[in-house]
Structures are given as C-alpha cells and as structure tokens.
C-alpha cells in the first residue's frame, strides 16, 4: 500500500533500491502482529527457526517483486510482440506487419533514457559514459553469464 501510494505521488529516482528496503521494512513493521495472531488461532508461537523461515519468504517475495518491477518499467519488446500476436489469434501476422509494430517505438532511445533516469549513465557532449558508481546488479548479471554459465556474448 505504501509503495502504491508513494508511486502515485512521485516515483523515486532509485526505485529498485527503495523497494529492496521498503518491503523488508514493511515486514518488520508487521512482525509484532504475528504472535498475537498465532495465539488467537491457537497456534504455537514461532521459534527462531520459524522467524528465519519467515525472513526467507519475505526476502524471496521482495526479490521477485523487484525483478518484476524492472520488467514493468522497461516495456519489454519481446512481451510487446507476444501480446500483439496474441490479439491476432490463430490467424497470426505476416513478418512485415510484426516489423511495423516493433518499430513503432525506438527501443534503444527508450533504454538510454531509462539508464539515465536510473543514474547508471551520464551523457556529455554527445558521448555516453558509465556513472561513477558501478551498477552492481548489471555487473553481477554479466559476471554470472560469462563466468558461471559460460554463455557467449549475445542477447539484446
């Protein structure tokens, strides 16, 4: 609820970082209500292992929501294509019609704007540079792809 109201008022600059703090903080605020609730339901109180279980569940939900939020912001070209084809049912579309739909938006310009809004890049005199602070999530993605999964450069 806090997230929804806050975003309606003004979306924060580092939205993902805010969400990573907001959800666990919300869970901490709700935590004192759990023992009386369990007592009212005639259930045994949570031990330390039970609270650890709750913490893992909250963390899993928070991470899942934050990655979903990234997809909300980014206007996925792939999902846009899929949704557009879904509207045309079994009849489908010819390649040219799909291409026309895809090109309605300049995806790269939108991505550059999103990177600038997230303060990951700076633009100076027609050139684009990485922002001084490293964006750990993207660096982690690149490291994992190349070193753990051993995937060739690609994507996009």
């Amino acid at each position: 609820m806090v997230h929804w109201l806050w975003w309606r008022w003004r979306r924060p600059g580092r939205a993902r970082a805010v969400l990573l703090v907001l959800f666990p903080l919300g869970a901490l605020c709700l935590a004192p209500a759990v023992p009386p609730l369990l007592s009212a339901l005639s259930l045994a109180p949570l031990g330390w292992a039970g609270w650890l279980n709750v913490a893992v569940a909250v963390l899993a939900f928070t991470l899942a929501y934050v990655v979903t939020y990234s997809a909300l912001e980014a206007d996925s070209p792939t999902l846009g294509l899929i949704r557009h084809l879904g509207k045309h049912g079994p009849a489908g579309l010819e390649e040219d019609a799909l291409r026309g739909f895809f090109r309605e938006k300049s995806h790269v310009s939108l991505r550059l704007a999103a990177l600038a809004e997230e303060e990951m890049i700076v633009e100076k005199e027609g050139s684009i540079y990485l922002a001084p602070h490293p964006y750990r999530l993207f660096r982690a993605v690149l490291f994992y792809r190349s070193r753990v999964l051993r995937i060739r450069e690609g994507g996009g």
Partner: protein
Amino acid sequence: MSRSLLELAHTAAPILGLTVLCLAHAAFCRWRRNSEGLNGLVWAGWAGVLGVASVEFFLWFRGVPLPGVLASALLVDFPVYALLAYGYANFFNLGESSVRVRIYRELVQAGGRGLDRRNLLDRYDEEAMFRARLVRLVAAGDLEKTGGRYRLGQVRLLWVARIIFALQRMVLGRAG
C-alpha cells in the same frame, strides 16, 4: 525431530531447490554451449522442484506425519521456491534479452572513453533487435512460422505479458 530442526528443514528446502536450479542451469548452458533461453530454465526449474521434494521426502521418511509435510510443502516450501526461481529466471533473462544490460556491457568495455550516442543508436539496429527476438522465440517454441505468417506457439509468454501489462497499469498508471 525437534520443532526447530523441522522449521530449519522447511527454511532450507526452497534454498536447496534454488541451488539445484542454479547448478542444473549452469550445467545445461555449459553442455549445450548456449542457453536456449526459456527451455533451459524450465528444465532447471523442474530440477529445483526435485530438490525441494527431496527435503519433503526426507522429513516424511524421518517420521513427520504426511499431512503436515504436504501442508508445509504446498503452503510454504514450494511457493517460496517458486518466488526464488522466478527471481533467478528474471536475473538470467536480464542478460539474455535486455538491451540495457547489453549497452551497459559495451560501456564497461569502453571504459573512460565512453561511447558516441549516434554510433550507439546506429549499432543497435532495430531490425537486428527484431530478428534476434524472432529467432529466439521461434527456437524456444513460443512462436511458430507457417506459410510466411507468425503465430503464438505457446501461451506461457502471453500470460506473462498480460500480467506485466496489468501490473504496469496498476503500479505505474500506464500500460505498454
């Protein structure tokens, strides 16, 4: 089995599932020399499910009543694993299809020199992006091409798209 140990086992189950998922996915990618996108993830996801199930089986084998094991598994362990697996899938997909990540990678490689905006826009040819997506979606079975026309092969991504667009409207006040 003590209550603490039982609760620890239920905490560990989804984490074990995620670990199995990551290992299976890494093995799949290294063996197949590429990721094959969603299909590799699905196989790894099911491997993770087996990881969670193995903990549940172990608990039942150690004398925890079956109704209790099933209730914990269905209400807590598998849903938490599903959330963790979903997070992993999106983490992986960021590198698979995200234009932003690709641009970021090129900026890392360019270092202090940066990249010229016009060259960047020219390099990320919209046609190449379009074709890359068509090839990937057809290879994964999400699109079918017959008689020169494309249609949906599977509806899994359509459901994802519908949910994402609904959430966009709700959270960001816009859709697409």
